[in-house]
């Protein structure tokens, strides 16, 4: 056990006037490290102690502006970049509707940062091991008495002089406050086995609880009630219809919206003769053609239509599209092959729209031209 060290000399006063005079006198005497303790804020005490205005407001201002501007920018980003949606026919940047959330977040961030820094930086709390805690002095100022405490670490501190000064101010009592170094400044050991065991236990508990919730509880009633719903899904069987199919076939004669019949069914020759590519080979059309070609044709015909299939023999190797035959074909024939298929090549009519098919034709032409360039192209 260490010997008690002197923290401060304290004096208690009965009236607010008494403490104001004491504060003024102590300040005039040139002490810097002293403090006043009162059960409630006493008017005029800040002036008596010569304290400057609290700087807390600047923190509030900064935090509020940052929170508000930050959330406004965030909402704008969500609406204009991350997830643009037309809502009620308004423009994406409809800022008046961003105001409520911006306001709330401004208030929230200003308040939380202010209070957080008040407690952590201005008060240096939580701190329950201050020398003044648990002293008769603290108990008195907690209730109805006003105290002053001149600390021993003040450069001018001299116990006898301070005691004399305080006594001259007509206090109720004057008393020194001591503390025990070891008791106040004990530290927690991070690698204490008990502490580590506690951490491990908490980790285990949290993991187990999370696992149980995510993998067990959520699959028990009533949490799983949304998973099993009273409805049919497309590929299911049913007793309800004689053909047992849940997915109903379309009514005979139904025509999809925007459907145009293809008049050259099974007539490759007339298709080649009569069909004309309605699109101009602009950069946009070629880009569309490239996209569709790479998606739908390249697995079999290869990225450059050279017949270098990526299917590694899982499917009969398709021919190159750079053959003289295909190069001399009219556009309509290529279009016909895409629409109808040819022998084992299936039809792509349901995946690729008419426009897109013509764009693919242009792209195939561009590939052909690129690999069989004429003299004139190279100049």
């Amino acid at each position, binding site marked *: 056990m260490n010997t008690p060290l002197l923290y401060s000399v304290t004096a208690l006063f009965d*009236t*607010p*006037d008494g403490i104001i005079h004491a504060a003024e006198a102590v300040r005039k005497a040139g002490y810097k490290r002293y*403090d*006043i*303790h*009162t*059960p*409630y*804020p*006493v*008017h*005029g005490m800040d002036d008596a*102690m010569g*304290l400057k205005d*609290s700087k*807390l*407001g600047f923190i*509030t201002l900064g935090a509020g502006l940052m929170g508000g501007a930050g959330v406004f920018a965030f*909402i704008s980003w*969500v*609406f204009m970049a*991350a*997830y643009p949606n037309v809502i009620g026919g308004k423009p994406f940047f*409809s800022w008046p*509707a*961003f105001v*409520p*959330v911006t*306001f*709330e*977040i401004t*208030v*929230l961030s*200003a*308040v*939380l940062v*202010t*209070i957080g820094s*008040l*407690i952590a930086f*201005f*008060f240096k*709390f*939580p*701190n*329950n091991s*201050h020398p*003044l*805690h648990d002293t008769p002095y*603290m*108990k008195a*100022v*907690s*209730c*109805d008495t006003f105290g002053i405490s001149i600390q021993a670490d003040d450069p001018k501190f001299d116990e006898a002089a301070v005691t004399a000064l305080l006594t001259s101010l007509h206090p109720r009592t004057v008393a020194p406050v001591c503390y025990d170094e070891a008791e106040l400044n004990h530290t927690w050991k991070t690698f204490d086995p008990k502490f580590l065991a506690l951490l491990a236990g908490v980790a285990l508990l949290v993991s187990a609880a999370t696992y149980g919730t995510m993998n067990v509880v959520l699959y028990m009633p*009533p*949490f799983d*009630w*949304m998973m099993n719903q009273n409805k049919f899904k497309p590929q299911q069987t049913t007793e309800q219809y004689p053909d047992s199919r849940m997915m109903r076939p379309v009514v005979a004669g139904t025509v999809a919206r925007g459907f145009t019949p293809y008049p050259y069914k099974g007539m490759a020759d007339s298709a080649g003769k009569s069909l004309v590519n309605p699109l101009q080979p602009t950069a946009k059309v070629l880009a569309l053609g490239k996209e569709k070609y790479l998606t739908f044709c390249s697995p079999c015909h290869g990225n450059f239509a050279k017949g270098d299939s990526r299917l590694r023999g899982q499917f009969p190797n398709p021919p190159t599209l750079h053959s003289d035959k295909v190069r001399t074909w009219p556009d309509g024939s290529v279009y016909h092959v895409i629409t109808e298929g040819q022998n084992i090549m299936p039809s792509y009519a349901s995946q690729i729209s008419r426009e897109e098919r013509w764009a693919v034709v242009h792209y195939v032409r561009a590939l052909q031209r690129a690999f069989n360039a004429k003299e004139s192209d190279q100049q």
Partner: protein
Amino acid sequence: MSNSAIDYTLEHPAVAGTPSAASIDEVITAPIDSKPSRGWWIGLAITGSMLGIGVLSVSWLFYKGTGVWGVNQPVGWGFDIVNFVFWVGIGHAGTLISAILFLLRQKWRTGIARFAEAMTIFAVMCALIFPLIHTGRPWLAAVYLLPYPNQHGIWVNFTSPLLWDVFAVSTYFTVSFVFWYIGLIPDFAMLRDRTKSKIKKIAYSIFSLGWRHSNRHWQHYEKAYLILAGFSTPLVLSVHTIVSFDFAVSVIPGWHTTIFPPYFVAGAVFSGFAMVQNVLVVTRKFFGLEHIITLNHLENMNKVMLLTGSIVGYAYAMEFFIAWYSGNPLEQFVFLNRALGPYAWAYWTMVSCNVIFPQLFWIKKVRTNIIGMFIIGVIVNIGMWFERFVIVVTSLSRDFLPSSWGHYMPTAIDFGVFIGSIGLFFTLVLLFVRVLPVVSMSEIKAVLPGAQPDHH
């Protein structure tokens, strides 16, 4: 003072008589340090049973889904939203007393501010139950309420009033809670220095954070309190404004009006003060706090109710006028339907409770009579609950298409949840009066006679 010459510039003293600071501590900590009385236990049994009914109802709701409620097309908003708005409104008085009256330097607020703030927090908790459970599957709520980055790449709709509500009410709850806690810190330190029990001492030490009543701290503390009050004031106005946007931003006749924000805020303060007044009337009697929560405080609250009640009455009249003046047949129908349609009983209950009875507060005898003011307070709360019912249900049950009109009737489960929220509120109030100081000791000491230095 004679009747002929009343000095209106004279401020009433914040407390009656000249109690000493030590006696304040004595009186206020008495309920915390003593064993609860039999009356308290009876009260807790009643509110606890009500809470139990609520827990059962909510469990049934979770088990079966929202089908157990009375809501259905066309009235998709029923008791849940009515109760939500009702409870949020109750909370508003607390912030008004603690923040706005603080900024207005009204000393009489000190006696009632702590209690009113606590009631704010409890009321907002009650309110939050309803949006949480109205989905029937609240454990999925975070997914669509809070904006968080997710693998679907989708975000919540920041321009929706319902989302504004989420932000407004949760901010309101957080800020009110911080405000309340900051006010409690010095009182926790006082309790810490008074208590003889070891466990209590540890608890109070933790909650007081090590407060030392140092003037170097008081200086920042007072600044922080001022900042909090400054923020809470626009915040509280924004909260009920945004709640009213839930209605006003839609296009339903009877909801789509610009008068809603001020009208809702006034209504919220009105019902909140009625609730605070009711609870304080009981508490001060029960714990012998008559000299701290004085008749003058109660009278002031009644005056606020008179004012806000008249604003609400004016708003009712103005709604009718504008419906007629707008020349919009749908609006006109909605208001005639309110007064004369199938929910006329609710409408006239609302008008008599909110507009007619509070006018009795013009009479000083009524305003200063404990029994009288208590009854009017209860009536006001009934009326304000009906106001939300009328707004929600009449507009939805008969809107544009007569072919899709309907009638809303709450079920027993609806009532069960509502009773449960009342039970929760009063259970929390009862616990609060036993574990925390119901009046801010440090603030009341500062306004005692002779507490501040004479000007020399």
